[in-house]
């Protein structure tokens, strides 16, 4: 459920009304005063389809992800929207081990086999393969000309993870419909069922081809509660502005059940098992994160109409009690080519600080910290994305879009590197390309 789905009805031939537009209208109807309020109920479904291909360089992750959204007005201003998403993920991904000047042998996530990484290469688990199915429904109910509630429910399932979520958002327009206040609450319940059970936090990695047992737990759960306050305001005839203030609290098992951290010699920085390591151990410890996390967000968006073109710019400030702060700036410029064709360049800048417990490695023999993770996504980095989209309306009032985006993430090292770590690119850049094709129509 998105608070930001404000959208007026599209101008459509044959006096049919866009369901997408009406859906958004019901969520946040402040702009409707300038349009006819008596809207005929449409018997058609509006179908939005998109297909995403996401590909990371250097043989990392590939994702194929089709999305279908179907919307329909079932009564005046009472709207239903369904969404189905299917993900297929394949490829290799780093799980926390550092590159080093030695050949490294690492146990696969299943715990039953190993893989070997040559010296001076970033170890990546190449057995990564998953499919995910997600479905969601939003039901918007008007209570008066100025009041709406949208109820949302989402479900997703993948091989080792299941999620169930519900949400409710109340929106209140002012009489002149120049301003909308909204308040939303959401609840998500997730269950991990990792392959072979979750790895015990801070346990040594055991040789997957040995007979020694890997300490494991079973399944585990986490819950998240979201709150949001929103304000959307017409600034003038060509400018609309939105502010959201969000708070989110997660608790439960927030550790990644597969990720681990390299154990190294405190002087040379090369892999080293600590004293007291169990038989058949490899020099890696499974990570451990706090069991709660509170996040705050501030979000601002402005949409401005120039002579023909439209600027859509947003900023998000994020902070949490894990020590992560981030800034996100997103800029889209819709350049009208005429005859229902447009181009839309896109720029996105993202910068985050590292979590307090983010480490590149742990020193063998030293006392363990309370929490530690080498997940590069909790590190200090800057992400940039450049994209271009082309859109075309067809004679049948359908719309075709295609976009290409190039993403780069560049990581900064955190703390003091040890010995050999100074000779390695311990957190290599991530580069990815997205290709998305979209088509919407009425049915």
């Amino acid at each position, binding site marked *: *459920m*998105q*608070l*930001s*789905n*404000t*959208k*007026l009805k599209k*101008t459509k031939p044959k006096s049919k009304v*866009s369901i*997408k537009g009406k859906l*958004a209208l019901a969520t946040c109807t402040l*702009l409707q005063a*300038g*349009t006819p309020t008596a809207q005929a109920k449409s018997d058609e479904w509006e179908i939005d389809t*998109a297909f995403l291909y996401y590909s990371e360089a250097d043989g990392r992750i590939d994702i194929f*992800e089709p*999305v279908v*959204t179907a919307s329909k007005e079932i009564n005046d201003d009472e709207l239903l929207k369904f969404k189905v*998403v299917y993900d297929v*993920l394949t490829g290799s991904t780093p799980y926390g081990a550092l590159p080093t000047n030695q050949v490294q042998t690492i146990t696969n996530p299943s715990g039953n086999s190993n893989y070997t990484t040559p010296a001076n290469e970033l170890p990546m688990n190449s057995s990564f393969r998953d499919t995910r199915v*997600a479905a969601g429904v939003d039901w918007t109910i008007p209570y008066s000309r100025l009041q709406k509630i949208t109820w949302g429910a*989402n479900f997703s399932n993948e091989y080792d*993870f299941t*999620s169930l*979520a519900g*949400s409710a*958002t109340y929106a209140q327009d002012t009489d002149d*419909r*120049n301003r909308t206040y909204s308040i939303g609450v*959401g*609840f998500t319940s*997730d269950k991990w069922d990792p392959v072979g059970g979750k790895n015990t936090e801070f346990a040594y990695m055991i040789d997957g081809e040995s007979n020694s047992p890997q300490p494991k737990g079973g399944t585990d759960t986490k819950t998240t509660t*979201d*709150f949001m306050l929103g*304000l959307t305001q*017409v600034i003038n005839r*060509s400018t609309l*502005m939105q*502010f959201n203030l969000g708070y989110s609290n997660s608790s439960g098992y927030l550790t990644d059940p597969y990720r681990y951290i390299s154990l190294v010699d405190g002087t040379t920085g090369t892999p080293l098992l600590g004293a007291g390591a169990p038989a058949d151990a490899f020099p890696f410890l499974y990570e451990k994160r706090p069991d709660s996390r509170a996040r*705050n967000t*501030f*979000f601002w*968006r402005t*949409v401005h*109409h120039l002579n023909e073109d*439209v600027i*859509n710019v947003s900023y998000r*400030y994020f*902070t949490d009690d894990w020590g*992560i702060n*981030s800034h*996100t700036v997103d800029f889209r410029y*819709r350049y009208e080519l005429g005859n229902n064709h*447009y181009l839309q360049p896109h720029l996105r800048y993202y910068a985050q600080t590292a979590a307090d417990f983010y480490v590149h490695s742990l020193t063998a023999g030293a006392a363990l910290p309370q929490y530690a993770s080498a997940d590069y*996504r*909790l590190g200090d980095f800057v*992400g940039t994305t450049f994209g271009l989209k082309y859109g075309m309306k067809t004679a049948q009032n359908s719309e075709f879009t295609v976009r290409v985006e190039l993403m780069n993430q560049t990581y900064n090292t955190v703390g003091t590197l040890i010995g050999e770590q100074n000779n390695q690119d311990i957190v290599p850049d991530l580069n*990815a390309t997205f290709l*998305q094709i979209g088509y919407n129509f009425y049915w």
Partner: protein
Amino acid sequence: MQKLFLVACIVLLSACTSVQAWEKNLLAKPSMALVADENEIFLDEHIYFSKEASTGGQGVGGGGCGCN
């Protein structure tokens, strides 16, 4: 954070002009929607959720993912 929100709202409310219903022709265009292409934003959010430590800002709820 709350102060930032409050200040932003005050600035916003003091800066805006009253727009009458018949003056909203530009605001009514589909390209002026806060989210003009829902699937595009949905897919972007899903990608960045799996690759960054920050989430949220635009809504509540949403489906979880084992990717992060």
